């Protein structure tokens, strides 16, 4: 019966996860102060066992032990030995990531068989970053090493974040886990509401968009031209609702346990520049790479030397801009590599965006001159929406690579965009994608609801507004949302609610 409820692999988008979460919240709530951390620790390991099997749990334990031991050792040593131990433990932590994610990839690329004992572990890319951040912070002296292995496991392996993040910043987050405050009624209900919203985004919106996207990207020779353009835009929405839905579930589960997890999205489609976009999309990943890669790189002797040479060659104004741009290229190369070892990720999720950002910076003076010439009011509504549309197109340009099966397919998709195929605009041409009229209506209405609520949320929390309403109205809204997910959600036989896209990382 447990396997029927939890499945062979526990997924966050399942009834099994809700039951698991409810049980953990219950035991966490009733446990006395000292035992609460132990409950969390057990929950984390239990979740990884259900989600990733024995291998997944073992890898998590190894990573946690490497991080925990590394922090203690690094903190207790001085001088060059401190650096040596730091390098050893950091390498060990990332070696586990490389073993599970990159070794199989490169073996497959080389036509070699991937050994069966190499497990596919969900979310390893995420908790590895959190554990590495702990070690780096201790090395820098930014925080004290956590003495309790139970508390370290409770924090670094926090189960809502194991699947797709958010990547946690140790100095601020660990404080919450040290307090381990008992969640109150408001935490639990508010968290539950957020989880429900996450399920709505994932099952009602994201999975419907996936039907359109999969049809086009699965056969782009047939579905070329406007199909590709539509599908790429749809994929941007699909990825957003999928990933942010997962974050809602993770943050909601964290909230039910009394923890406030960092946000990973801040209305990214309102971004007016590429730089702003990446401050609003997958925020915690950007922050991690900025804090632990970009800044150390900028302060590194190599880049300081480059800065000196650039200034002497190109002058102070232009010379100063070169090292940050080099650092940005390195940073985005690594971000692309983190998504996957393949060229499509390195380009589509990495270098392409770096180039667009650099281009944006270089062309900004020219753009300003054009605006002045055309009497365009910078900051005006029209101008802002133009910039948002432009930023959205830049985002989509990378998503073609992200979604395509291979780099070559991505190039084929780009070529196919200009085929002039307009069949999408006929009823038959649209319906051929597999989403019928009724499903399309639900999709449009739910997207409208999503954007309306996000717009409202900019001014004040929607959950707070709803809780201020009378009980019958509140309950009607909650129950309506619940039934929407239950009835209109794309799950069950015939549908394979795809595992969260980012859980593959």
């Amino acid at each position, binding site marked *: 019966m447990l396997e*029927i409820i939890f499945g*062979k692999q526990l997924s966050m988008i399942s009834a099994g996860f809700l039951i698991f979460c409810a049980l953990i919240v219950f035991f966490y709530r009733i446990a006395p102060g000292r035992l609460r951390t132990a409950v969390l620790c057990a929950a984390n390991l239990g979740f990884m066992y259900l989600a990733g099997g024995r291998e997944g749990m073992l890898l998590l334990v190894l990573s946690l032990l490497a991080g925990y031991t590394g922090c203690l050792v690094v903190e207790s040593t001085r001088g060059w030995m401190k650096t040596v131990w730091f390098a050893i433990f950091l390498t060990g932590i990332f070696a586990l990531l490389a073993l599970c994610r990159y070794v199989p990839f490169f073996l497959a690329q080389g036509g070699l068989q991937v050994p069966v004992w190499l497990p596919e572990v969900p979310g390893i890319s995420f908790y590895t970053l959190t554990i590495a951040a702990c070690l780096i912070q201790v090395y820098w002296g930014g925080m004290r090493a956590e003495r309790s292995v139970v508390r370290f496991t409770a924090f670094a392996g926090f189960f809502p974040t194991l699947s797709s993040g958010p990547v946690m910043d140790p100095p601020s987050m660990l404080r919450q886990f040290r307090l381990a405050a008992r969640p109150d009624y408001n935490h639990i209900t508010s968290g539950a509401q957020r989880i429900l919203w996450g399920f709505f985004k994932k099952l009602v919106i994201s999975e419907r968009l996936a039907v359109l996207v999969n049809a086009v990207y699965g056969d782009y020779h047939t579905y070329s031209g406007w199909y590709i353009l539509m599908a790429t835009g749809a994929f941007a929405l699909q990825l957003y609702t999928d990933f942010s839905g997962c974050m809602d579930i993770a943050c909601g589960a964290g909230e039910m346990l009394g923890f406030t997890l960092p946000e990973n999205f801040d209305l990214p489609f309102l971004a007016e520049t590429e730089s702003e976009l990446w401050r609003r999309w997958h925020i915690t990943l950007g922050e991690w790479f900025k804090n632990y890669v970009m800044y150390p790189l900028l302060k590194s002797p190599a880049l300081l030397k480059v800065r000196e040479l650039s200034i002497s060659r190109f002058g102070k104004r232009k010379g100063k801009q070169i090292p940050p741009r080099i650092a940005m290229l390195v940073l985005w190369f690594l971000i692309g590599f983190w998504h996957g070892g393949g060229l499509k990720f390195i380009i589509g999720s990495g270098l392409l965006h770096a180039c667009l950002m650099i281009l944006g910076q270089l062309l900004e003076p020219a753009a300003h001159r054009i605006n002045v010439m055309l009497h365009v009011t910078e900051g005006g509504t029209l101008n802002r929406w133009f910039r948002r549309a432009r930023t959205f197109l830049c985002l989509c340009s990378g998503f073609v690579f992200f979604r395509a099966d291979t780099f070559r397919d991505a190039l084929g998709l780009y070529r196919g965009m200009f085929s002039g195929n307009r069949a999408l605009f006929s009823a038959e041409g649209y319906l051929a994608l597999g989403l019928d009229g009724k*499903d399309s209506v639900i999709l449009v209405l739910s997207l409208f609801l999503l954007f309306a609520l996000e717009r409202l949320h900019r001014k004040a929390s929607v959950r707070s507004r709803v809780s201020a309403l009378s009980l019958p109205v509140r309950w009607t809204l*909650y*129950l309506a949302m619940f*039934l929407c997910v*239950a009835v209109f959600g794309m*799950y069950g*036989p015939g549908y394979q609610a795809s595992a969260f896209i980012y859980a593959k990382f």
Partner: protein
Amino acid sequence: MNSRRTIGSRSGNHHPELILTFGMQMSLKTKKYMKTAAFVLTAALLLQFVSAVCIDKQSQERMGYFYRYPEDSYDVMYFGPSHMLFGIYPMRIWEQYGITGYNCAGYDASMPICYWMFRQMIKTHRPKVAVLDVLNSERVDKWWDVQVTHITWDRIPFSRTKVWAVRDLFSDIAMQREYLFPFYLYHNRWKELTAQDVIRVFRPVENVDMGAVADGRVAPPDYEEDADVPQYQGTGSEDTVNIEYIRRFIHDCRENDIQPVLVFLPYMGVKENLEGANEIYRVAEEEGVPYLNMVYEDGLVDYDSDFSEATVHLNVAGATKVSDYLGQYLADTFALEDHRGDPAYQQWEEYDRRYRSAFNERAADAGTLVQCVNFLFGSANTAELEIRKGAVPEQPEQKLLKEAEEAGLLRVREVEQFSPDPDCVAETAEGKEAGLPEYHITVRDKDTGQLVAGHYYAE
């Protein structure tokens, strides 16, 4: 001094503010828990209602009424695949022998599926006799078309037995889930819902046939497929998984004081089917249970006219004969009491009235002559058929008309032209050009003479 202690007070003195504060806190806390419980309960009830609306109603139509009848109200329960479903009419057996029964057979049901149906049904309704049609016992797989199994199983309530059944039959977790929680499968039906889906939640459709399915069509057999297998010539192989479940059925019957009977209904099957059926002679002898292999009962059915759609299932004429045959056997062998006229079984007289009424409706709605005639069998009606001079019915229909005549159900005469009958419905065969009708049939109640149906048919 006040002996009543208050919170935080050691002296036992009253602290009204504390009492008031503590009381309010307790009240607030309790209020919150009660609100939460009320919300969860409301959500669960709403989900239950929505689930009932979304679920496909075929299962409710087939099995829903099974649970409405009082516990242990069936003398006999019939299990098996679709051959049993179409082949045995419990209400016919009631009419003829006063034996109560329910047809629990299922489309494409393997022996393991039948076994688990039996286990679930006897939890609430324990019959005196359980009859199992052993078709496909030679097959080695546990199931072959489980989509249609939903039609039988969805209505069965969630229980430990259902969990065991699902886990035994299906190794795939997703399939287990869809059988234990049908909403997981049917929530997609929101696109097909009509007002009827909601109405049927409150007013389920009654299955007046006690689970059976009455088919009025006639299809000629494909004699090229006729395998001439001598009686008792079995497969000669060891027990298949389906035979293992037949044995489990027999043992469980005995453990529950139920008499097991194995049958194989008339069927023009391939060699493997007939040899498989013959192999059950060995099993029956080993287990000491009766086995009726009706393939070798000469003259029991007419293979030309007693089957619908490619001689797979018995039609009304054939099922009536087989039901009479089986009913006689049950009455003679197991000394089952004849409950007709028994005040304790008055409710069954009412069921019979609805059953006959349904047959009348089917005759009135019959789209072809052969269907109309077929529904004479097992009904309380007779009919008069006028055939326009020169019209010649096709072979299977001719045989059926002759059977009905010989059974005293039909009077046939050839006419130059029909006597006008304003109550008759003019029918044309689907896909054919409307022309002059060639047949005029009038169906009336045998006892009262009341008109039941009247049709003109082009062919």
